[in-house]
């Protein structure tokens, strides 16, 4: 409620300053009122989650542009306009009527309740597939609709939006006909609005599973990354993720994630972003501290602002043996809403072309302003081109007319009609 009160106060100031700007006879005063209005608007920007825009508003608008205005007013000495002839007496009335119609329309529309501006619609669920099963490339079907085709082992697809609801997941070897062949992996997926889910295909030797890993793409804390572990080995009961610490000191091991069963999702772990570190995966409950880890993630870099999924997966080699491979899939999270990063990310990707155009426009405007304010432009008066009046009919038509029309008056009227206007 406090926020609404603040809004009302600041809004009142904004409207009042705008009104003062309108009615002040001195242009300098008007400009200063306008600056006040701009500052109020900047405050609203801040409350609306647009800190970057807010600061730009202060700096560029209230700062640069208004200074320019003041400068021009001072330069011209045009604080007060010379009273001109009272023309267009009907215009203020019409303008006020139009303004009222406008305001009534907007207000009516807002108050009708037809326009929902209270709660924003939640975003659509996003789904991707991570292939970590000991299997050839696969096609993934959701409710018998092809969702991802030809996904390779170790590969992760891009996120795709889906409607909320329940889905049956069937996985076939790549290129197989789902109508005739039996699916290799079966699973299910439940999606609600705002979900972001990674479908991880796991398993080996006939034991396969689809694990739905919920992900959080919201911004991380500063300098942090998120980490989770998935055990993709059906024949290993439970595993731990261990930070071995310094190699010289065997006693500083730190267990990060414990007891990750096959296909289970464990809690996502926020972690300081690190570079070039090593994490070991060991079998849970191992007595021997010195035992060799099951597999190691070497030279692992966890960048800040990323979601990192670590998967231990089986891979069949060419000679038929199965070995355990570590998979690391990092996904960047979204930047903070309204931050300069967020604006810049849009500006330099989706709106790159408009951005460039606008910069060219600025350049042109700058040159135009310089050219137009040069004195010579105004002093150089080109001689007025003489106005040539000639009939619109050619000499041939004239002669024909003269020959054809006996009385000269007729000719004259014809000619003047054609030449006139």
């Amino acid at each position, binding site marked *: 409620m406090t926020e609404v009160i603040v809004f009302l106060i600041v809004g009142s100031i904004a409207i009042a300053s705008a009104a003062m700007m309108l009615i002040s006879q001195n242009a300098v005063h008007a400009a200063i009122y306008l600056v006040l209005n701009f500052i109020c608007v900047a405050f609203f920007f801040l409350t609306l989650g647009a800190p970057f825009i807010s600061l730009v508003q202060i700096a560029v608008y209230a700062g640069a542009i208004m200074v320019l205005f003041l400068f021009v007013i001072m330069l011209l000495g045009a604080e007060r306009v010379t009273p001109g002839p009272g023309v*267009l007496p009907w215009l203020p009335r019409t303008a006020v009527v*139009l*303004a009222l119609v406008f305001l009534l*329309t907007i207000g*009516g*529309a807002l108050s*009708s309740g*037809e326009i929902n501006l209270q709660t924003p619609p939640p975003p659509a669920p996003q789904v991707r597939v991570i292939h970590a099963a000991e299997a050839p490339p696969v096609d993934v079907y959701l409710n018998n609709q092809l969702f991802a085709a030809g996904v390779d082992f170790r590969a992760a697809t891009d996120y795709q939006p889906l409607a909320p609801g329940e889905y049956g997941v069937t996985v076939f070897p790549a290129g197989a006909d789902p109508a005739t062949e039996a699916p290799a992996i079966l699973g299910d997926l439940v999606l609600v609005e705002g979900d972001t889910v990674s479908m991880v295909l796991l398993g080996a030797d006939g034991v396969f599973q689809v694990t739905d890993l919920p992900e959080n793409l919201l911004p991380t804390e500063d300098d942090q990354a998120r980490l989770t572990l998935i055990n993709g080995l059906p024949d290993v009961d439970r595993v731990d993720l261990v930070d071995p610490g310094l190699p010289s000191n065997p006693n500083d091991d730190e267990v990060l994630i414990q007891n990750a069963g096959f296909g289970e999702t464990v809690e996502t772990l926020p972690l300081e972003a690190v570079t070039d570190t090593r994490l070991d995966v060991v079998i849970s409950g191992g007595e021997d501290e010195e035992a060799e880890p099951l597999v190691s993630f070497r030279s692992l870099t966890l960048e800040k602002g990323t979601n990192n999924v670590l998967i231990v997966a089986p891979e069949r080699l060419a000679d038929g043996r199965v070995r355990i491979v570590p998979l690391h899939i990092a996904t960047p999270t979204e930047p903070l809403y309204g931050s300069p990063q967020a604006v810049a990310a849009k500006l330099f990707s989706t709106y790159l072309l408009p951005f460039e155009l606008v910069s060219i426009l600025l350049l042109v405007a700058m040159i135009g302003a310089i050219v137009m304010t040069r004195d010579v432009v105004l002093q150089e008066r080109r001689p007025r081109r003489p106005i040539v009046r000639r009939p619109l009919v050619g000499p041939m038509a004239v002669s024909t007319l003269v020959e*054809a029309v006996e009385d000269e008056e007729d000719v004259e009227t014809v000619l003047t009609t054609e030449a006139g*206007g």
Partner: protein
Amino acid sequence: MENFPQLVPLVVFAPLLGLLINLVLGKYLGERGVGFVAVGAALTALGTALLLWMSLIATGYEPTVVELPLMPNWINIPAAAVDIAWQFRVDTLSVTMMLVVAGVGSLIHFYATGYMHGDPMYPRFFVYLNLFLVFMMLLVTGNNFLVMFVGWEGVGLCSYLLISFWWDKQNRPADPVEAEKYGTLGWRNSIAGRKAFIVNRIGDFGLLLGVFLTFWTFGTLDFYKPGEVPIAPRHEEAAVVEHEAAAAPAEGEGEGGPLAARMGVFNQAELLIEEGADVDFGPFSLPIDVVVTLITLFFLLGVTGKSAQIPLFVWLPDAMAGPTPVSALIHAATMVTAGVYLIVRSNVLFHAAPLSSAVVALVGTFTALVGGFIAMGQWDIKKVLAYSTVSQLGFMVAAAGLGAYAAAMFHLVTHAFFKALLFLGSGVVIHAVEHGHHHAHAHGEHAEEEDVFDPQDMRNMGGLKQRMPVTYITYLVGTLALAGIFPFAGFWSKDEILADALNVGFLEGRLEGYIAFGVLFIAALFTAFYMGRQLFMVFFGEPRTEAARHADEKAYGMQAMTRTLLVLAGGATLVGLINVPRGFWVFDWVIPNHAFTDFLEHTVVYAHAGSAQMLLAILAVAGGLSMIWLAWMIYGKKPVVQGSKDPLEVTPQTKGIFAYANARMYWDETYYRFFEGPFNRAAWWLADKLDWAFLHDFVHETILYETYNGITRLLTRPIDLGLIDGAVNGLARLIQAIAARMRRLQTGYVRVYALSVLLGAVVVVLLMLAPVLSDLLGG
């Protein structure tokens, strides 16, 4: 030396380069520069011709065909089996022509640098002269009839351009006949050029038909294919065996595709005539000898045009309106001999067509007689020479028609020298008299005489011997050479023609031989007479005008002219020695007897050397001398005085004859009455009745114009103005009216626009929230 023939394109391209330089830069080069370029181009061609001549001697007179490297396929239409290459032919005949053209041409170029001095169109003149050389060289070097035809047409064009060179010349002709014909202020030179061009078109039409027929018959236009050897003349039995081997490969039909691809026109003609083949013309076919006769008759038509034979010679005398170097080069020495060249080049065809040969001989013979006769009655110094040229061309053509191809060519060469000499000499005389005229009138005489004074009229001359000694001597040499006086060049060539005519008549017993001999002998007497008359009228006696009294050959620019005369006089004296007939062994130690004939025989298969007819020679010389003596008696002893009539005109016995000759035998008038007049009347009728009255007045004015106007009126008044304009204008007015009201919305006040934006925003919000609000209101 074997590679020298490859230089032959230079004879065409050197003048071409010269003319291009003068064309582009002529304005800036000045007279000396232009003259240098033009003469240099001509001399380059001459040098090339000399190199070709040397290479011919060195390689045993082997003919060579040179392809133009840039144009391997000149005209190549595979679908029609037309494949005509632009090839140059270097053989003794073409080299002879090249030497004559380039030699005389160079001299005349040199002469013209002086003659044209001060002419405002100096560069243009030399561009034309070089252009003439280009085409003349094309004509004589081409290896097929088509290249030759290009040259043939080209020289015709140059002739036209050069006759009309002073196209704006309006001087009144001194001759009353011409004055009546052209009027007092006719564009004389332009008309003369046009006449030459049109008359030549008739001849060229014939030549073109001949060329077409040749192509149809033989499938090719090449004289000989590269490397082909002429088949031996059949009438020389001894030679047949000798040439059998050479001809043999050409006879095998099976080898190397169709005949046309392997064999030129002439060898094919020999073969086909021997076989007696028929020529297929689609619906009918003709025996080959008939076809060849037709071809040669068509060629003869071309010859009569280009070489000024009866009946188409009428253009040549008028062509003398052009500058004198042009008359000398084109209308005396070279271009007009193209016809003779054509006959000699096609000697195989003409030999195979005795009928055509006889016609050619008779045409030439009577041309010689007519030309000589008319020349006796002319007063204009150049007209005399022009008819003399007609006459001499008649000699050549007659000789060619009689089978004396070598004699024809020989006369062509010698004639080129002495006739060029005479023309250039007459040019000097005219120049000097004109100069004297200006000189005399510098002292302020009345201007009336200026208009009528004709520097070419021999009646205005006289007594120039003392004033122009160099001209006189060289002119004398030319006269003697033309009159056929021993030992000048004309003696040898004319005597050979007469001797050949005699041979044809008495030894072969052909009628045209008798006729030709008799008539040509008379023509030769005429020649001596009119030349004597001219000589005495021009150079002897007392000057008959002020102009002649002030004539002078040492004025600026005339050195080039007189020097040229000297060189040509030397040529006119000595060039006859190249073909001294058998029997004059005295001259054998200078140049072997009939060397020129031997030279030509390598190309002209039917050429043969004449033998000396000592008696005939003496008779001819005696006749010539006596005619000169006669001229002296008439014109020399009692010189014609100014204003008096010609002595022959006065004497009752000769009065009629002279009038007939003076009127040029009414040849032009006849043509005018029978061809030009009816043609003009027909043209008038067509123009007046058909074109103007019918086409213009009736069809255009009445039918088309009125109909169109009616339709237009209909379209204009109700449809265009009423309907279309009404609709368009109405729409325009409507939009105008709407716009006039709508424009008030645009107040220009920003706040109003802002209000409208706000209105729009409110409406949009209302629409967006309408479902919610309707629930609210309804509920």
